[in-house]
Protein backbone atom coordinates (compact mmCIF):
# COMPACT_ATOMS: atom_id res chain seq x y z
CA UNK A 1 0.00 0.00 0.00
CA UNK A 2 2.86 2.26 0.85
CA UNK A 3 4.28 1.47 -2.58
CA UNK A 4 1.00 2.45 -4.17
CA UNK A 5 0.99 5.67 -2.17
CA UNK A 6 4.52 6.39 -3.25
CA UNK A 7 3.61 5.58 -6.83
CA UNK A 8 0.72 7.99 -6.71
CA UNK A 9 3.14 10.67 -5.63
CA UNK A 10 5.17 10.14 -8.83
CA UNK A 11 4.00 12.46 -11.60
CA UNK A 12 5.62 10.19 -14.17
CA UNK A 13 3.52 7.25 -12.99
CA UNK A 14 0.33 9.32 -12.99
CA UNK A 15 1.11 10.38 -16.53
CA UNK A 16 1.55 6.76 -17.59
CA UNK A 17 -1.70 5.68 -15.96
CA UNK A 18 -3.62 8.55 -17.49
CA UNK A 19 -2.23 7.69 -20.91
CA UNK A 20 -3.08 4.03 -20.43
CA UNK A 21 -6.60 4.79 -19.25
CA UNK A 22 -6.97 7.15 -22.18
CA UNK A 23 -6.05 4.52 -24.74
CA UNK A 24 -8.13 1.89 -22.96
CA UNK A 25 -11.17 4.12 -23.04
CA UNK A 26 -10.50 4.74 -26.72
CA UNK A 27 -10.85 1.00 -27.21
CA UNK A 28 -13.68 0.27 -24.81
CA UNK A 29 -15.58 3.45 -23.86
CA UNK A 30 -15.63 5.29 -27.17
CA UNK A 31 -17.54 2.46 -28.92
CA UNK A 32 -20.43 3.13 -26.51
CA UNK A 33 -20.89 6.51 -28.16
CA UNK A 34 -19.58 5.84 -31.64
CA UNK A 35 -21.09 3.36 -34.05
CA UNK A 36 -18.29 0.94 -34.88
CA UNK A 37 -18.65 -0.68 -38.28
CA UNK A 38 -15.64 -2.16 -40.01
CA UNK A 39 -17.52 -3.96 -42.77
CA UNK A 40 -19.51 -1.34 -44.61
CA UNK A 41 -18.15 1.01 -47.22
CA UNK A 42 -19.38 4.35 -46.05
CA UNK A 43 -17.66 6.44 -48.66
CA UNK A 44 -14.98 6.74 -51.28
CA UNK A 45 -11.49 5.36 -50.67
CA UNK A 46 -9.26 7.57 -48.54
CA UNK A 47 -11.85 10.20 -47.76
CA UNK A 48 -10.30 12.87 -45.54
CA UNK A 49 -11.64 13.40 -42.00
CA UNK A 50 -15.08 14.98 -41.85
CA UNK A 51 -17.72 15.67 -39.24
CA UNK A 52 -19.37 12.39 -40.10
CA UNK A 53 -16.23 10.30 -40.22
CA UNK A 54 -13.86 11.83 -37.75
CA UNK A 55 -10.80 10.14 -39.13
CA UNK A 56 -11.90 9.68 -42.72
CA UNK A 57 -11.97 6.35 -44.52
CA UNK A 58 -9.46 3.69 -45.50
CA UNK A 59 -8.68 2.40 -49.00
CA UNK A 60 -11.94 0.45 -48.99
CA UNK A 61 -14.03 3.38 -47.90
CA UNK A 62 -14.47 1.93 -44.42
CA UNK A 63 -14.69 4.32 -41.48
CA UNK A 64 -11.17 4.73 -40.12
CA UNK A 65 -12.14 5.45 -36.52
CA UNK A 66 -14.09 2.18 -36.39
CA UNK A 67 -11.06 0.35 -37.72
CA UNK A 68 -8.83 1.97 -35.13
CA UNK A 69 -11.14 1.10 -32.25
CA UNK A 70 -11.43 -2.48 -33.36
CA UNK A 71 -7.72 -2.66 -34.20
CA UNK A 72 -6.74 -1.35 -30.80
CA UNK A 73 -8.94 -3.94 -29.11
CA UNK A 74 -7.21 -6.69 -31.07
CA UNK A 75 -3.77 -5.31 -30.33
CA UNK A 76 -4.52 -5.11 -26.63
CA UNK A 77 -5.78 -8.67 -26.68
CA UNK A 78 -2.65 -9.92 -28.45
CA UNK A 79 -0.39 -7.96 -26.13
CA UNK A 80 -2.08 -9.23 -23.00
CA UNK A 81 -2.20 -12.86 -24.09
CA UNK A 82 1.37 -12.84 -25.39
CA UNK A 83 2.46 -11.07 -22.21
CA UNK A 84 0.84 -13.67 -19.98
CA UNK A 85 2.30 -16.59 -21.92
CA UNK A 86 5.77 -15.11 -22.14
CA UNK A 87 5.84 -14.05 -18.50
CA UNK A 88 4.66 -17.39 -17.15
CA UNK A 89 6.97 -19.45 -19.35
CA UNK A 90 9.90 -17.14 -18.90
CA UNK A 91 9.50 -16.73 -15.16
CA UNK A 92 9.17 -20.41 -14.46
CA UNK A 93 12.13 -21.44 -16.60
CA UNK A 94 14.21 -18.55 -15.26
CA UNK A 95 13.40 -19.37 -11.64
CA UNK A 96 14.20 -23.00 -12.11
CA UNK A 97 17.43 -22.38 -14.01
CA UNK A 98 18.61 -19.72 -11.61
CA UNK A 99 17.77 -21.73 -8.55
CA UNK A 100 19.09 -25.08 -9.66
CA UNK A 101 22.16 -23.96 -11.55
CA UNK A 102 24.34 -26.74 -12.91
CA UNK A 103 23.34 -28.73 -15.97
CA UNK A 104 19.68 -27.78 -15.66
CA UNK A 105 20.74 -24.18 -15.89
CA UNK A 106 22.94 -24.90 -18.89
CA UNK A 107 20.21 -26.86 -20.64
CA UNK A 108 17.64 -24.13 -20.16
CA UNK A 109 20.23 -21.63 -21.26
CA UNK A 110 20.75 -23.66 -24.41
CA UNK A 111 17.03 -23.80 -25.16
CA UNK A 112 16.86 -20.05 -24.54
CA UNK A 113 19.70 -19.46 -26.95
CA UNK A 114 18.03 -21.70 -29.47
CA UNK A 115 14.86 -19.67 -29.35
CA UNK A 116 16.84 -16.48 -29.69
CA UNK A 117 18.75 -17.86 -32.62
CA UNK A 118 15.82 -19.14 -34.67
CA UNK A 119 14.10 -16.08 -36.03
CA UNK A 120 10.59 -15.56 -34.74
CA UNK A 121 9.58 -14.89 -38.30
CA UNK A 122 10.56 -18.34 -39.55
CA UNK A 123 8.71 -20.01 -36.76
CA UNK A 124 5.64 -17.90 -37.37
CA UNK A 125 5.33 -18.69 -41.05
CA UNK A 126 6.10 -22.33 -40.59
CA UNK A 127 3.49 -22.76 -37.93
CA UNK A 128 0.87 -20.76 -39.73
CA UNK A 129 1.39 -22.46 -43.08
CA UNK A 130 0.32 -25.70 -41.46
CA UNK A 131 -2.85 -24.02 -40.17
CA UNK A 132 -5.54 -24.63 -42.72
CA UNK A 133 -7.88 -21.87 -41.70
CA UNK A 134 -5.14 -19.27 -41.70
CA UNK A 135 -3.76 -17.24 -38.84
CA UNK A 136 -6.06 -16.14 -36.07
CA UNK A 137 -5.31 -13.38 -33.61
CA UNK A 138 -4.97 -15.92 -30.82
CA UNK A 139 -2.48 -17.97 -32.81
CA UNK A 140 -0.36 -14.88 -33.39
CA UNK A 141 -0.47 -14.07 -29.69
CA UNK A 142 0.55 -17.61 -28.76
CA UNK A 143 3.44 -17.57 -31.20
CA UNK A 144 4.64 -14.21 -29.94
CA UNK A 145 4.35 -15.44 -26.37
CA UNK A 146 6.25 -18.61 -27.14
CA UNK A 147 9.08 -16.79 -28.86
CA UNK A 148 9.58 -13.81 -26.56
CA UNK A 149 9.86 -15.53 -23.20
CA UNK A 150 13.60 -15.79 -23.66
CA UNK A 151 14.66 -12.50 -22.20
CA UNK A 152 12.31 -12.88 -19.26
CA UNK A 153 14.04 -16.16 -18.58
CA UNK A 154 17.43 -14.53 -18.73
CA UNK A 155 16.43 -11.69 -16.44
CA UNK A 156 14.58 -13.83 -13.91
CA UNK A 157 17.38 -16.38 -13.96
CA UNK A 158 19.87 -13.73 -12.93
CA UNK A 159 17.60 -12.49 -10.15
CA UNK A 160 16.88 -15.97 -8.86
CA UNK A 161 20.55 -16.87 -8.93
CA UNK A 162 21.41 -13.79 -6.93
CA UNK A 163 18.88 -14.40 -4.18
CA UNK A 164 19.17 -18.15 -3.91
CA UNK A 165 22.12 -17.78 -1.56
CA UNK A 166 20.24 -15.48 0.80
CA UNK A 167 19.63 -16.55 4.35
CA UNK A 168 15.93 -17.25 4.22
CA UNK A 169 16.32 -19.47 1.18
CA UNK A 170 19.14 -21.40 2.78
CA UNK A 171 17.05 -21.74 5.90
CA UNK A 172 14.14 -23.13 3.90
CA UNK A 173 16.50 -25.55 2.19
CA UNK A 174 17.92 -26.71 5.51
CA UNK A 175 14.38 -27.19 6.78
CA UNK A 176 13.77 -29.58 3.91
CA UNK A 177 11.34 -27.53 1.84
CA UNK A 178 10.79 -28.93 -1.64
CA UNK A 179 12.19 -27.20 -4.71
CA UNK A 180 8.70 -26.23 -5.82
CA UNK A 181 7.90 -24.69 -2.44
CA UNK A 182 11.12 -22.76 -2.40
CA UNK A 183 10.68 -21.62 -5.97
CA UNK A 184 7.15 -20.40 -5.56
CA UNK A 185 6.89 -19.48 -1.91
CA UNK A 186 10.27 -18.02 -1.29
CA UNK A 187 11.88 -16.93 -4.51
CA UNK A 188 8.82 -16.05 -6.60
CA UNK A 189 7.19 -14.10 -3.79
CA UNK A 190 10.37 -12.21 -3.39
CA UNK A 191 10.51 -11.46 -7.11
CA UNK A 192 6.81 -10.75 -7.49
CA UNK A 193 7.17 -7.04 -8.09
CA UNK A 194 9.93 -7.75 -10.57
CA UNK A 195 7.82 -10.32 -12.40
CA UNK A 196 4.95 -7.87 -12.55
CA UNK A 197 7.15 -5.31 -14.17
CA UNK A 198 8.39 -7.93 -16.61
CA UNK A 199 4.79 -8.69 -17.45
CA UNK A 200 4.11 -5.05 -18.26
CA UNK A 201 7.14 -4.99 -20.55
CA UNK A 202 6.14 -8.25 -22.21
CA UNK A 203 2.67 -6.91 -22.88
CA UNK A 204 4.13 -3.81 -24.49
CA UNK A 205 6.54 -5.84 -26.56
CA UNK A 206 3.71 -8.20 -27.52
CA UNK A 207 1.79 -5.26 -28.96
CA UNK A 208 4.89 -4.09 -30.82
CA UNK A 209 5.68 -7.60 -32.10
CA UNK A 210 2.17 -8.04 -33.40
CA UNK A 211 2.40 -4.81 -35.31
CA UNK A 212 5.74 -5.86 -36.80
CA UNK A 213 4.44 -9.26 -37.81
CA UNK A 214 1.32 -7.77 -39.36
CA UNK A 215 3.45 -5.20 -41.11
CA UNK A 216 5.35 -7.96 -42.91
CA UNK A 217 1.98 -9.29 -44.00
CA UNK A 218 1.92 -12.25 -41.67
CA UNK A 219 -0.72 -10.83 -39.41
CA UNK A 220 -4.11 -12.27 -38.55
CA UNK A 221 -6.36 -13.02 -41.51
CA UNK A 222 -9.60 -12.73 -39.59
CA UNK A 223 -9.28 -9.44 -37.73
CA UNK A 224 -8.19 -5.86 -37.94
CA UNK A 225 -5.28 -4.95 -35.71
CA UNK A 226 -3.20 -1.80 -35.51
CA UNK A 227 -0.48 -3.66 -37.39
CA UNK A 228 -2.77 -4.71 -40.23
CA UNK A 229 -4.04 -1.13 -40.50
CA UNK A 230 -0.47 0.05 -41.02
CA UNK A 231 0.23 -2.78 -43.41
CA UNK A 232 -2.84 -1.95 -45.47
CA UNK A 233 -2.03 1.73 -45.44
CA UNK A 234 1.47 1.05 -46.69
CA UNK A 235 0.42 -1.43 -49.36
CA UNK A 236 -2.45 0.74 -50.53
CA UNK A 237 -0.30 3.80 -50.99
CA UNK A 238 -1.65 5.93 -48.19
CA UNK A 239 1.83 7.42 -47.93
CA UNK A 240 2.12 8.43 -51.56
CA UNK A 241 -1.50 9.57 -51.70
CA UNK A 242 -0.97 11.74 -48.66
CA UNK A 243 -3.74 10.00 -46.70
CA UNK A 244 -2.11 10.62 -43.33
CA UNK A 245 -5.27 9.64 -41.47
CA UNK A 246 -4.81 6.09 -42.67
CA UNK A 247 -1.55 5.54 -40.80
CA UNK A 248 -0.76 8.41 -38.42
CA UNK A 249 -3.52 7.66 -35.87
CA UNK A 250 -2.53 4.00 -35.79
CA UNK A 251 1.13 4.90 -35.23
CA UNK A 252 0.09 7.28 -32.47
CA UNK A 253 -2.06 4.61 -30.80
CA UNK A 254 0.65 1.95 -30.87
CA UNK A 255 3.20 4.39 -29.54
CA UNK A 256 0.77 5.69 -26.90
CA UNK A 257 -0.11 2.31 -25.48
CA UNK A 258 3.48 1.05 -25.46
CA UNK A 259 4.73 4.35 -24.08
CA UNK A 260 2.13 4.28 -21.29
CA UNK A 261 3.21 0.76 -20.33
CA UNK A 262 6.91 1.69 -20.45
CA UNK A 263 6.31 4.77 -18.32
CA UNK A 264 4.38 2.76 -15.75
CA UNK A 265 7.08 0.14 -15.71
CA UNK A 266 9.85 2.69 -15.31
CA UNK A 267 8.18 4.59 -12.52
CA UNK A 268 7.43 1.34 -10.73
CA UNK A 269 11.04 0.37 -11.06
CA UNK A 270 11.94 3.69 -9.50
CA UNK A 271 9.80 2.89 -6.49
CA UNK A 272 10.59 -0.79 -6.14
CA UNK A 273 14.25 -0.35 -6.71
CA UNK A 274 15.35 2.49 -4.41
CA UNK A 275 18.67 2.78 -6.17
CA UNK A 276 16.97 4.34 -9.13
CA UNK A 277 15.63 7.07 -6.90
CA UNK A 278 17.36 10.32 -6.95
Amino acid at each position, binding site marked *: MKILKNLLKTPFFIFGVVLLVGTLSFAYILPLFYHVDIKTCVGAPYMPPSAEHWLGTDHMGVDMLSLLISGLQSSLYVGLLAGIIATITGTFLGLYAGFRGGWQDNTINMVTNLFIVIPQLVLLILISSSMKEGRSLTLIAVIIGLTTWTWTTRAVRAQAASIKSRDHISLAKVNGASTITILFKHILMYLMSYVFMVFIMQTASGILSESAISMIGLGPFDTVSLGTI*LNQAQRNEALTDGAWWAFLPAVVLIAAIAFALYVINQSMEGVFNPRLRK
Partner: protein
Amino acid sequence: MLKRYPTLRYILSKAGWYFLTFIAAVIINFFLPRMGASNPVDIIMAKVGAGLDTQAAIEKEESYLKEFGLVEVDKDGNIIRDESGKPVQASSFKQFIRYVTMSLQGDFGTSFLNYPKKVSEIILGAIPWTIALQLPTIVLGWIIGNVLGALAAYRRGIFDKFFFPLALLGNAMPFFAFGMLLVWLFAIQMHLFPAIGGYAGDLIPSFSWTFISSAIYHFILPFLSIFLLSAGGQAIGMRSMCIYELGTDYIKYAKWLGVKEHKIIFYMFRNAMLPQLTGLALSLGGMVGGALITEMIFSYPGLGMSVLTAIQGNDYPLIQGCTLLVTICVLIANFSVDIAIGFLDPRVRAGQGAK
Protein backbone atom coordinates in the same frame (compact mmCIF):
# COMPACT_ATOMS: atom_id res chain seq x y z
CA MET B 1 43.20 -30.90 -14.59
CA LEU B 2 41.41 -27.91 -16.03
CA LYS B 3 40.84 -26.65 -12.51
CA ARG B 4 44.21 -25.04 -12.66
CA TYR B 5 43.18 -22.98 -15.68
CA PRO B 6 39.82 -21.45 -14.83
CA THR B 7 39.85 -19.22 -17.90
CA LEU B 8 40.47 -22.08 -20.29
CA ARG B 9 37.89 -24.14 -18.47
CA TYR B 10 35.40 -21.32 -18.79
CA ILE B 11 35.98 -20.92 -22.51
CA LEU B 12 35.79 -24.63 -23.18
CA SER B 13 32.59 -25.09 -21.23
CA LYS B 14 30.99 -22.15 -23.04
CA ALA B 15 32.20 -23.43 -26.40
CA GLY B 16 30.76 -26.84 -25.63
CA TRP B 17 27.33 -25.46 -24.86
CA TYR B 18 27.36 -23.25 -27.90
CA PHE B 19 28.28 -26.18 -30.08
CA LEU B 20 25.33 -28.16 -28.72
CA THR B 21 23.07 -25.19 -29.40
CA PHE B 22 24.43 -25.03 -32.91
CA ILE B 23 23.69 -28.70 -33.58
CA ALA B 24 20.17 -28.33 -32.23
CA ALA B 25 19.61 -25.22 -34.33
CA VAL B 26 20.78 -26.96 -37.48
CA ILE B 27 18.39 -29.83 -36.85
CA ILE B 28 15.48 -27.50 -36.17
CA ASN B 29 16.31 -25.34 -39.18
CA PHE B 30 16.25 -28.43 -41.32
CA PHE B 31 13.11 -30.10 -40.07
CA LEU B 32 10.82 -27.16 -39.28
CA PRO B 33 10.36 -25.99 -42.88
CA ARG B 34 9.58 -29.55 -43.89
CA MET B 35 6.70 -29.74 -41.45
CA GLY B 36 4.64 -27.40 -43.58
CA ALA B 37 1.98 -28.90 -45.81
CA SER B 38 3.27 -27.69 -49.15
CA ASN B 39 6.10 -29.17 -51.11
CA PRO B 40 8.25 -26.71 -53.07
CA VAL B 41 8.04 -28.79 -56.23
CA ASP B 42 4.26 -28.45 -56.10
CA ILE B 43 4.71 -24.71 -56.00
CA ILE B 44 7.06 -24.80 -58.97
CA MET B 45 4.71 -27.07 -60.86
CA ALA B 46 1.76 -24.81 -60.14
CA LYS B 47 3.72 -22.12 -61.98
CA VAL B 48 5.08 -24.08 -64.92
CA GLY B 49 2.61 -26.95 -65.10
CA ALA B 50 -0.26 -25.09 -66.71
CA GLY B 51 -0.68 -26.00 -70.36
CA LEU B 52 1.33 -29.20 -70.13
CA ASP B 53 -0.28 -32.52 -70.81
CA THR B 54 -0.30 -35.00 -67.98
CA GLN B 55 2.68 -37.07 -69.06
CA ALA B 56 4.89 -34.07 -69.68
CA ALA B 57 3.90 -32.57 -66.34
CA ILE B 58 4.80 -35.78 -64.52
CA GLU B 59 8.15 -35.98 -66.26
CA LYS B 60 8.92 -32.40 -65.46
CA GLU B 61 7.92 -32.84 -61.85
CA GLU B 62 10.10 -35.92 -61.51
CA SER B 63 13.09 -34.17 -62.97
CA TYR B 64 12.70 -31.50 -60.30
CA LEU B 65 12.18 -34.02 -57.52
CA LYS B 66 15.36 -35.76 -58.58
CA GLU B 67 17.28 -32.52 -58.93
CA PHE B 68 16.41 -31.49 -55.38
CA GLY B 69 17.02 -34.90 -53.85
CA LEU B 70 13.44 -35.37 -52.76
CA VAL B 71 13.12 -38.86 -54.26
CA GLU B 72 15.15 -42.03 -53.88
CA VAL B 73 17.64 -42.55 -56.69
CA ASP B 74 19.50 -45.74 -57.60
CA LYS B 75 23.17 -46.06 -58.49
CA ASP B 76 22.67 -45.04 -62.10
CA GLY B 77 20.76 -41.94 -61.15
CA ASN B 78 17.37 -43.36 -62.07
CA ILE B 79 14.38 -42.70 -59.87
CA ILE B 80 13.32 -45.68 -57.77
CA ARG B 81 9.61 -46.39 -58.17
CA ASP B 82 7.07 -48.32 -56.15
CA GLU B 83 4.66 -50.91 -57.61
CA SER B 84 2.27 -48.26 -58.94
CA GLY B 85 5.15 -46.54 -60.73
CA LYS B 86 5.20 -43.54 -58.46
CA PRO B 87 8.60 -42.32 -57.31
CA VAL B 88 9.64 -43.29 -53.81
CA GLN B 89 10.00 -40.21 -51.63
CA ALA B 90 13.36 -39.77 -49.96
CA SER B 91 13.01 -39.89 -46.19
CA SER B 92 13.62 -36.71 -44.23
CA PHE B 93 16.54 -38.40 -42.57
CA LYS B 94 18.21 -39.18 -45.89
CA GLN B 95 17.61 -35.61 -47.01
CA PHE B 96 19.16 -34.41 -43.78
CA ILE B 97 22.28 -36.52 -44.28
CA ARG B 98 22.54 -35.22 -47.83
CA TYR B 99 22.15 -31.67 -46.58
CA VAL B 100 24.79 -32.03 -43.89
CA THR B 101 27.33 -33.69 -46.19
CA MET B 102 26.82 -31.07 -48.83
CA SER B 103 26.97 -28.20 -46.35
CA LEU B 104 30.22 -29.51 -44.95
CA GLN B 105 31.61 -29.30 -48.48
CA GLY B 106 30.46 -25.70 -48.61
CA ASP B 107 27.58 -26.45 -50.96
CA PHE B 108 24.28 -25.09 -49.64
CA GLY B 109 22.36 -26.35 -52.62
CA THR B 110 20.31 -24.74 -55.32
CA SER B 111 17.36 -22.52 -54.61
CA PHE B 112 14.03 -24.02 -55.65
CA LEU B 113 12.35 -20.76 -56.44
CA ASN B 114 15.34 -19.11 -58.08
CA TYR B 115 16.43 -22.24 -59.88
CA PRO B 116 19.19 -22.61 -61.05
CA LYS B 117 20.71 -19.99 -58.78
CA LYS B 118 22.90 -21.32 -56.00
CA VAL B 119 21.85 -20.48 -52.45
CA SER B 120 25.33 -19.21 -51.68
CA GLU B 121 25.15 -16.90 -54.69
CA ILE B 122 21.87 -15.39 -53.55
CA ILE B 123 23.09 -14.90 -50.01
CA LEU B 124 26.40 -13.42 -51.06
CA GLY B 125 24.66 -11.00 -53.38
CA ALA B 126 22.25 -9.72 -50.75
CA ILE B 127 24.07 -10.00 -47.45
CA PRO B 128 26.53 -7.11 -47.95
CA TRP B 129 23.57 -4.72 -48.12
CA THR B 130 21.98 -6.15 -45.03
CA ILE B 131 25.25 -5.97 -43.15
CA ALA B 132 26.13 -2.54 -44.50
CA LEU B 133 22.83 -1.16 -43.30
CA GLN B 134 22.31 -3.08 -40.12
CA LEU B 135 25.75 -3.54 -38.62
CA PRO B 136 26.91 0.07 -38.46
CA THR B 137 23.43 1.14 -37.44
CA ILE B 138 23.20 -1.35 -34.61
CA VAL B 139 26.77 -0.84 -33.43
CA LEU B 140 26.61 2.93 -33.69
CA GLY B 141 23.19 2.97 -32.04
CA TRP B 142 24.62 0.84 -29.30
CA ILE B 143 27.64 3.05 -28.74
CA ILE B 144 25.78 6.36 -28.89
CA GLY B 145 22.91 4.93 -26.85
CA ASN B 146 25.30 3.77 -24.15
CA VAL B 147 27.09 7.08 -24.02
CA LEU B 148 23.82 9.01 -23.81
CA GLY B 149 22.41 6.61 -21.24
CA ALA B 150 25.52 6.96 -19.11
CA LEU B 151 25.38 10.72 -19.43
CA ALA B 152 21.72 10.79 -18.46
CA ALA B 153 22.45 8.63 -15.44
CA TYR B 154 25.49 10.59 -14.35
CA ARG B 155 24.31 14.10 -15.02
CA ARG B 156 20.62 13.60 -14.23
CA GLY B 157 18.90 16.96 -14.08
CA ILE B 158 17.32 18.61 -17.09
CA PHE B 159 19.20 16.50 -19.61
CA ASP B 160 17.80 13.35 -18.08
CA LYS B 161 14.34 14.79 -17.61
CA PHE B 162 14.13 15.68 -21.25
CA PHE B 163 16.07 12.87 -22.78
CA PHE B 164 14.77 9.90 -20.84
CA PRO B 165 11.06 10.25 -21.69
CA LEU B 166 12.04 10.92 -25.27
CA ALA B 167 14.08 7.73 -25.43
CA LEU B 168 11.21 5.87 -23.81
CA LEU B 169 8.82 7.22 -26.40
CA GLY B 170 11.20 6.20 -29.14
CA ASN B 171 11.35 2.75 -27.67
CA ALA B 172 7.57 2.54 -27.68
CA MET B 173 7.42 3.40 -31.37
CA PRO B 174 7.82 0.45 -33.73
CA PHE B 175 10.78 1.31 -35.92
CA PHE B 176 8.93 0.56 -39.12
CA ALA B 177 6.21 3.00 -38.11
CA PHE B 178 8.93 5.52 -37.50
CA GLY B 179 10.40 4.64 -40.88
CA MET B 180 7.01 5.16 -42.51
CA LEU B 181 6.75 8.58 -40.93
CA LEU B 182 10.26 9.44 -42.13
CA VAL B 183 9.44 8.38 -45.68
CA TRP B 184 6.20 10.28 -45.63
CA LEU B 185 7.69 13.45 -44.22
CA PHE B 186 11.14 13.66 -45.74
CA ALA B 187 10.81 11.71 -48.95
CA ILE B 188 7.25 12.19 -50.12
CA GLN B 189 6.20 15.50 -48.61
CA MET B 190 9.47 17.40 -48.57
CA HIS B 191 11.45 15.57 -51.28
CA LEU B 192 14.60 15.86 -49.18
CA PHE B 193 15.66 12.24 -49.39
CA PRO B 194 15.02 9.38 -51.77
CA ALA B 195 12.31 6.97 -50.70
CA ILE B 196 13.40 3.92 -52.62
CA GLY B 197 16.44 1.76 -53.09
CA GLY B 198 20.03 1.61 -51.94
CA TYR B 199 21.48 3.91 -54.61
CA ALA B 200 20.26 5.93 -57.56
CA GLY B 201 18.58 3.91 -60.28
CA ASP B 202 20.97 5.06 -63.00
CA LEU B 203 24.09 3.77 -61.29
CA ILE B 204 25.83 0.47 -61.00
CA PRO B 205 27.98 -0.18 -57.95
CA SER B 206 31.56 0.93 -58.45
CA PHE B 207 34.36 2.60 -56.57
CA SER B 208 33.42 6.05 -57.68
CA TRP B 209 32.43 9.08 -55.71
CA THR B 210 29.13 9.29 -57.60
CA PHE B 211 28.13 5.83 -56.48
CA ILE B 212 29.37 6.14 -52.92
CA SER B 213 27.72 9.50 -52.37
CA SER B 214 24.49 8.19 -53.84
CA ALA B 215 24.65 5.14 -51.57
CA ILE B 216 25.23 7.38 -48.57
CA TYR B 217 22.35 9.63 -49.58
CA HIS B 218 20.03 6.64 -49.83
CA PHE B 219 21.40 5.28 -46.58
CA ILE B 220 20.32 8.22 -44.43
CA LEU B 221 16.60 7.55 -43.96
CA PRO B 222 16.82 3.80 -43.36
CA PHE B 223 19.74 4.45 -41.06
CA LEU B 224 17.84 7.05 -39.06
CA SER B 225 14.77 4.86 -38.81
CA ILE B 226 16.74 2.17 -37.02
CA PHE B 227 19.49 4.20 -35.41
CA LEU B 228 17.44 6.76 -33.50
CA LEU B 229 15.17 4.20 -31.92
CA SER B 230 17.82 1.61 -31.18
CA ALA B 231 20.06 4.26 -29.63
CA GLY B 232 17.10 5.30 -27.48
CA GLY B 233 16.47 1.71 -26.43
CA GLN B 234 20.10 1.13 -25.55
CA ALA B 235 20.22 4.42 -23.67
CA ILE B 236 17.33 3.37 -21.46
CA GLY B 237 19.05 0.13 -20.55
CA MET B 238 22.40 1.83 -20.01
CA ARG B 239 20.84 4.53 -17.90
CA SER B 240 19.38 2.17 -15.37
CA MET B 241 22.55 0.05 -15.35
CA CYS B 242 24.57 3.19 -14.66
CA ILE B 243 22.25 4.37 -11.93
CA TYR B 244 22.66 0.98 -10.37
CA GLU B 245 26.43 1.16 -10.62
CA LEU B 246 26.47 4.71 -9.24
CA GLY B 247 24.75 3.47 -6.11
CA THR B 248 27.29 0.76 -5.45
CA ASP B 249 29.72 0.91 -2.55
CA TYR B 250 32.82 0.87 -4.68
CA ILE B 251 31.78 4.05 -6.47
CA LYS B 252 31.07 5.74 -3.15
CA TYR B 253 34.39 4.55 -1.79
CA ALA B 254 36.22 5.87 -4.81
CA LYS B 255 34.44 9.20 -4.41
CA TRP B 256 35.43 9.42 -0.77
CA LEU B 257 39.00 8.79 -1.63
CA GLY B 258 38.91 11.78 -3.91
CA VAL B 259 39.28 9.77 -7.12
CA LYS B 260 38.88 12.03 -10.10
CA GLU B 261 35.50 12.34 -11.75
CA HIS B 262 36.54 10.94 -15.10
CA LYS B 263 37.89 7.85 -13.43
CA ILE B 264 34.64 7.35 -11.59
CA ILE B 265 32.71 7.75 -14.83
CA PHE B 266 34.97 5.18 -16.34
CA TYR B 267 34.30 2.76 -13.45
CA MET B 268 30.58 3.23 -13.93
CA PHE B 269 30.67 3.04 -17.71
CA ARG B 270 32.78 -0.03 -17.92
CA ASN B 271 30.89 -2.03 -15.35
CA ALA B 272 27.47 -0.97 -16.63
CA MET B 273 28.52 -1.88 -20.13
CA LEU B 274 29.14 -5.55 -19.43
CA PRO B 275 25.45 -6.52 -19.42
CA GLN B 276 24.88 -4.20 -22.37
CA LEU B 277 27.29 -6.30 -24.41
CA THR B 278 24.82 -9.17 -24.21
CA GLY B 279 22.17 -6.82 -25.53
CA LEU B 280 24.40 -6.02 -28.48
CA ALA B 281 24.83 -9.68 -29.32
CA LEU B 282 21.09 -10.18 -29.15
CA SER B 283 20.27 -7.26 -31.39
CA LEU B 284 22.72 -8.55 -33.97
CA GLY B 285 20.61 -11.69 -34.00
CA GLY B 286 17.52 -9.72 -34.90
CA MET B 287 19.31 -8.22 -37.86
CA VAL B 288 17.73 -10.21 -40.66
CA GLY B 289 14.21 -9.90 -39.28
CA GLY B 290 14.67 -6.18 -38.83
CA ALA B 291 16.19 -5.89 -42.28
CA LEU B 292 13.07 -7.39 -43.79
CA ILE B 293 10.79 -4.59 -42.64
CA THR B 294 13.30 -1.90 -43.54
CA GLU B 295 13.65 -3.46 -46.97
CA MET B 296 9.90 -3.41 -47.38
CA ILE B 297 9.51 0.21 -46.39
CA PHE B 298 12.50 1.62 -48.23
CA SER B 299 12.69 -1.00 -50.97
CA TYR B 300 16.26 -1.38 -49.80
CA PRO B 301 18.38 -4.19 -51.18
CA GLY B 302 19.20 -7.02 -48.79
CA LEU B 303 18.57 -10.49 -47.52
CA GLY B 304 15.34 -9.95 -45.62
CA MET B 305 13.00 -10.10 -48.56
CA SER B 306 14.72 -13.19 -49.95
CA VAL B 307 14.11 -14.89 -46.64
CA LEU B 308 10.44 -13.97 -46.65
CA THR B 309 9.80 -15.17 -50.18
CA ALA B 310 11.86 -18.27 -49.50
CA ILE B 311 9.76 -19.11 -46.49
CA GLN B 312 6.51 -18.37 -48.25
CA GLY B 313 7.55 -20.52 -51.19
CA ASN B 314 8.97 -23.25 -48.96
CA ASP B 315 12.32 -22.88 -50.66
CA TYR B 316 14.03 -25.25 -48.20
CA PRO B 317 17.62 -24.77 -49.38
CA LEU B 318 17.37 -21.01 -49.26
CA ILE B 319 15.61 -21.01 -45.88
CA GLN B 320 18.25 -23.34 -44.52
CA GLY B 321 21.07 -21.33 -45.98
CA CYS B 322 19.76 -18.11 -44.49
CA THR B 323 18.86 -19.50 -41.11
CA LEU B 324 22.19 -21.29 -40.92
CA LEU B 325 23.92 -18.03 -41.61
CA VAL B 326 21.84 -16.19 -39.02
CA THR B 327 22.36 -18.99 -36.54
CA ILE B 328 26.11 -18.96 -36.98
CA CYS B 329 26.23 -15.17 -36.71
CA VAL B 330 24.13 -15.07 -33.58
CA LEU B 331 26.03 -17.88 -31.95
CA ILE B 332 29.39 -16.34 -32.77
CA ALA B 333 28.19 -12.95 -31.53
CA ASN B 334 26.91 -14.46 -28.30
CA PHE B 335 29.94 -16.62 -27.83
CA SER B 336 32.36 -13.74 -28.33
CA VAL B 337 30.35 -11.60 -25.95
CA ASP B 338 30.41 -14.37 -23.36
CA ILE B 339 34.14 -14.73 -23.75
CA ALA B 340 34.65 -10.97 -23.71
CA ILE B 341 32.61 -10.67 -20.53
CA GLY B 342 34.60 -13.54 -19.08
CA PHE B 343 37.78 -11.61 -19.70
CA LEU B 344 36.45 -8.23 -18.67
CA ASP B 345 34.65 -9.39 -15.57
CA PRO B 346 36.70 -11.50 -13.16
CA ARG B 347 33.51 -12.29 -11.24
CA VAL B 348 32.08 -14.29 -14.12
CA ARG B 349 35.30 -16.17 -14.65
CA ALA B 350 35.68 -16.96 -11.00
CA GLY B 351 32.05 -17.97 -10.72
CA GLN B 352 32.38 -20.41 -13.58
CA GLY B 353 35.78 -21.63 -12.59
CA ALA B 354 34.63 -22.44 -9.09
CA LYS B 355 31.76 -24.63 -10.25
